[in-house]
């Protein structure tokens, strides 16, 4: 490794869009029979994963168009202690763990980057979601038929890993793998559910397994941007009102003050 590669390119940051989360499907009675005696009470099969944000065309999973192995060395999933060898280290893509279970819990995801990055590992947390989303956000366990009709439950969070002033060789490596861009517009696939996204909340009620797997799109970003801008406008409008009130009250106060001084 020549030392010029170990020079940080300053004034530059480079990011990679990723998603992390899980997909869960309810087990049919037949499947449950096939389970081993230790896991007889398990009701769901779930997969927790770290993937690239864009979905491959016609894929049956959320995201995962790109192989993240070029900059991620290892992803460790720390499952609930009740699972045998609860820390699962995945050293090559796909970075995911599939298990069966009966309850929701928080999984710790530790992403280790390749040594060229010179970066420390990063820790994320994800709540494994098994039961369908509801409008209220309160967990509800629907009857089996209903769960089967609704299809797999998806819970994914988009995020961007930002590398500041990367080393030259690491930057070259990243630039050799440009990420697949998110589709500009929402296509036939549903919007991934997110508690902060009213669009997905509305859709969530009607989601069925026929609609396919959700997909992240740029439209979601635009949508959120508009929501934020809208909110900002409202806040500013309200600010104006309160400013007026403040001025009025101040005047009133000053008048009173004058009277006190008289």
């Amino acid at each position, binding site marked *: 490794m020549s*030392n010029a590669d*170990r*020079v940080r390119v300053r004034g530059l*940051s480079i990011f990679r869009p990723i998603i992390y989360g899980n997909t869960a499907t309810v087990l049919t009675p037949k499947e449950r029979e096939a389970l081993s005696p230790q896991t007889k009470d398990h009701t769901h099969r779930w997969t927790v994963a770290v993937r690239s944000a864009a979905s491959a065309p016609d894929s049956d999973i959320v995201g995962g168009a790109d192989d993240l192995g070029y900059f991620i060395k290892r992803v460790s999933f720390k499952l609930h202690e009740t699972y045998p060898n609860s820390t699962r280290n995945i050293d090559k893509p796909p970075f995911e763990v599939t298990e069966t279970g009966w309850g929701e819990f928080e999984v710790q995801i530790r992403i280790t980057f390749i*040594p060229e990055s010179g*970066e420390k590992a990063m820790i994320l947390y994800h709540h494994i979601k098994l039961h369908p989303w509801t409008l209220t956000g309160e967990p509800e366990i629907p009857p089996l038929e209903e769960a089967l009709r609704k299809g797999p439950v998806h819970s994914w969070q988009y*995020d961007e890993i930002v590398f500041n002033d990367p080393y030259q060789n690491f930057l070259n490596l990243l630039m050799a793998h440009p990420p697949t861009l998110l589709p500009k517009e929402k296509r036939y696939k549903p919007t991934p559910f997110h508690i902060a996204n009213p669009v997905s909340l509305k859709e969530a009620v009607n989601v069925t397994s026929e609609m396919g797997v959700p997909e992240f799109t740029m439209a979601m970003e635009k949508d959120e941007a508009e929501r934020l801008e809208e*909110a900002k406008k409202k806040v500013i409008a*309200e600010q104006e009102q309160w400013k007026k009130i403040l001025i009025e009250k101040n005047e009133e*106060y000053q008048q009173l003050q004058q009277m006190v001084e008289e």
Partner: protein
Amino acid sequence: MAASIADVRSALSISAPSPSTPGPSQLKKQPSQSIRKPEGISRELYSLIGPSAPTLAAQLAKPRLKQKPNLGGGGKVKWEWRTFKNSARTDSLELGHWVKANSDPNAEYTFAKYNVQHTVYSWTQDEYTRYLQDPEWTPEESQYLFKLAVEYDLRWYIIHDRYHYPTGVTRELEDLKDRYFSICRKLVRNRPWNGDETSKNQLLASFSFDKEREQLRKKYVANLENRNPEQVQEEEALYLEVKRLEQNERKFKREREELLRTLAGIDSGLPDIVEDEATFFTVDTSKLQKKKNRGTDLDSPSVSSAPSVTKRAPVVKDPVEDAKHCIIRTELSATTPATKAAHTPAYMRSFKLPYPKAAIAPRVTQVLSELGISPSRLVMPTRDNCQRLESLMDEATTLVELKKAVDKVIQDIEVTKARLDLRETEGEEPARHPETDLEMDERGTIEPEGEDGRAQSVVSTRSTRSRKHSRRSMSVSSVDTTATSSARPATKRQKRG
């Protein structure tokens, strides 16, 4: 003088004229020499250096001296006294002046053209009502202004000096100008124009007048003139100080750059790159390896210079490429230290979501959630959206702080009202005895005014009382929070009775 010339001659080894020869004979000798005198060299110089410097003479010959301009032919100019008429004058006054005898006696007076006549604008009653109305001005006064403007030929200071309109409103110079030019502008704009647009615009521009700006300008000039010596001195001192600071700053920057260049340059073997910090170790290498690395680097600088080509490649700024590779470039500030400690480690975008100030966090969160925004989570935490959330949060914080300020003022108002009420009841304490009150009323003397019964002697009690009434009516409208409120109606009744 002769001695010095002799010195020069001896120095240049020119045969000196015989010492016995007097001055005039020297001059007589010259013509014989001047035949050979090359052109372009002055007589005096030639007499000094003689023919012994031909190269110099040849060079001097090149730029020919300009001929003196021949003025007026023979040198003598005849002037004569003539009478003339100024065609710009309306009266046929004849004046006289000296002119050259050879000039044309029938020519127009040269200065007549400088008497430019201004277009006199006048208006019809209809035009006035439609365009020229101004609450500050009557049509008559406008007419008067225009009359003066024409009379004094737009000499504004004179116009202002002579301006005396019977309504008695004193007008500033700027008021007059503003009115005059605005009328002109409006008339030009609204009347049919038979020239082209540019000339119309030119004319309009010549009528433009900004009253506020002119006043401001005059104020500034007056301020500038009215500075006292100390202020002037202070200003100069400050100016010098600023200059000195600037200079220091520059010097400091230069030195710093040099230092960086020296350090980074030697280390990386690339003296032309200042921005990039050379680091020779990965995170997990030991100190020993580090030392070894550095040693080898210093030993073989040729290794380090090779990859400079690959290094340059990503520096090319191409927004399209950058977007494709998700690269964001920031301007480096000179103050950012290029050390390992200052490096920001890799992070998730959502790690850097803004937090509201702890003291008002619950209220900010509430404001945001009322708007359907969850302050701690974004669906798509991209850079733009994070920034948007941050600015939204800033605004929400401002809003919450505004509300707090309003609350405080309202509270202050309540407190003050309570104080007023309290004082009023105290102030009316003596009035509980109707006799004394009446007596005082009749006598028209001082009525104690509670805690600050001062300066009331001038004012009659009647007025004091009426003021009190008004005050009471105000406090009645306010929220009843004072303990003294129960006492008030009683006092009131007594007073009325």
